């Protein structure tokens, strides 16, 4: 038996979402069983089945390198502080 990860996309603008896993002997049977397990009432109009052995799980160490890269974002606090200061100066 192979294990497949099931991704379903609801009709409309929603993104694909992981909805669960299931076993099937081959991709052909997987399609029928996935429909019966995950999409009995039109819950989606598109579905992806991914063989679990093909999923690459990214190493935590690869992901954990971005916490000190504050220059890659901007939370707007500098501008907010500057505006607040200007308002205070204008009011005085």
């Amino acid at each position, binding site marked *: *038996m192979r294990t497949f990860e099931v991704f379903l996309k609801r009709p409309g603008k929603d993104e694909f979402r992981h909805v*669960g*896993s299931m076993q*099937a002997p081959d991709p052909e049977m997987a399609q029928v069983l996935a429909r019966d*397990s995950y999409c*009995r009432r039109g819950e989606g109009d598109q579905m992806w089945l991914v063989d679990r052995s093909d999923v690459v799980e990214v190493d*935590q160490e690869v992901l954990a390198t971005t916490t000190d890269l504050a220059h890659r974002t901007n939370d707007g606090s500098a501008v907010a502080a500057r505006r607040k200061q200007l308002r205070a100066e204008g009011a005085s």
Partner: protein
Amino acid sequence: MTRTWSDLDDFQAFIDGGGMVEPNDDMPAPYRDEVFRFIEFHANSELMGGLTERDWIPRAPGVRLKQIFLAKTQDEIGHAHLLYQVAADMGLKTRTEMLEQLFDGRSRFHNVFHYQAVTWADQIAIAYLVDAAAFASQRAVFAECTYGPYKRVLKRIVSEEGFHMRHGEEMLLRLAEGTDTQRSMFQDALTRWWWPAVQLFGPDSDPNDPLLRWKIKSQTNETLRHAYIQKYVPLLQSYGFEIPDDNLRFDAEAEDGKGAWLTTDIDWEPLKATMRQGGPDSRRRISTAAANYADTAWVRSALEPKPVAA
């Protein structure tokens, strides 16, 4: 490198910070054990419930109700499928081991599936009262649920239980508005099923219940049970049915003047008996389920991948 935690305190901080555990994480062994046991119990209960439902397909009155019971049976068995997959992926038992232990009488499942459904009205009491109790407790798990794969399948399960309950209430209304015979049939079923449904929530939670601490359960058993009683006592009474509890009373002073329905002290012996497979119908239920598993062996065998000819 999988995610790992130095000790249980470190893990608790992760949970308290809104963390979600995934199957490949190096989760603490007690978390894996407890969550696995909980999901296995849930899976077993869905399967046993689905088989009960199936028994009534041929006896459901009318084509529409037969269709509804067919679909509900497929839903419950489907829930069991999803849950056994999630449980098996935790690596403690395979799906086959879980099923074999269930059919050997070595595994537990919900108390309500250890009783016999005597008439069609019992099946409605189950569809309405029992499904509502199961729905309330599953929704409380879904609300937080720190185990990712469980939370994802619960989303589907909870939404399906929602309309099972509406089916149940619709069927109940037909009996409530029916003939005297129909009304007394439902009253008898309610007398049989009220306490098992209330007991489904279990005795008061241990304040140190790790499943509460790890946010698998979001509410204590007693909180859910109390809310259920507050909702269903007046509802069933409004249809003219009697709750089988001589000490049931409404205390207007309770809960800072908001008032609350108070029941007699609950006898937990019947619940404990079902956990030892000693319920009134435990033996027959388990043997029926085992026979069904044996009867469907050919399906599993047909699904086995065939060796490719060279």
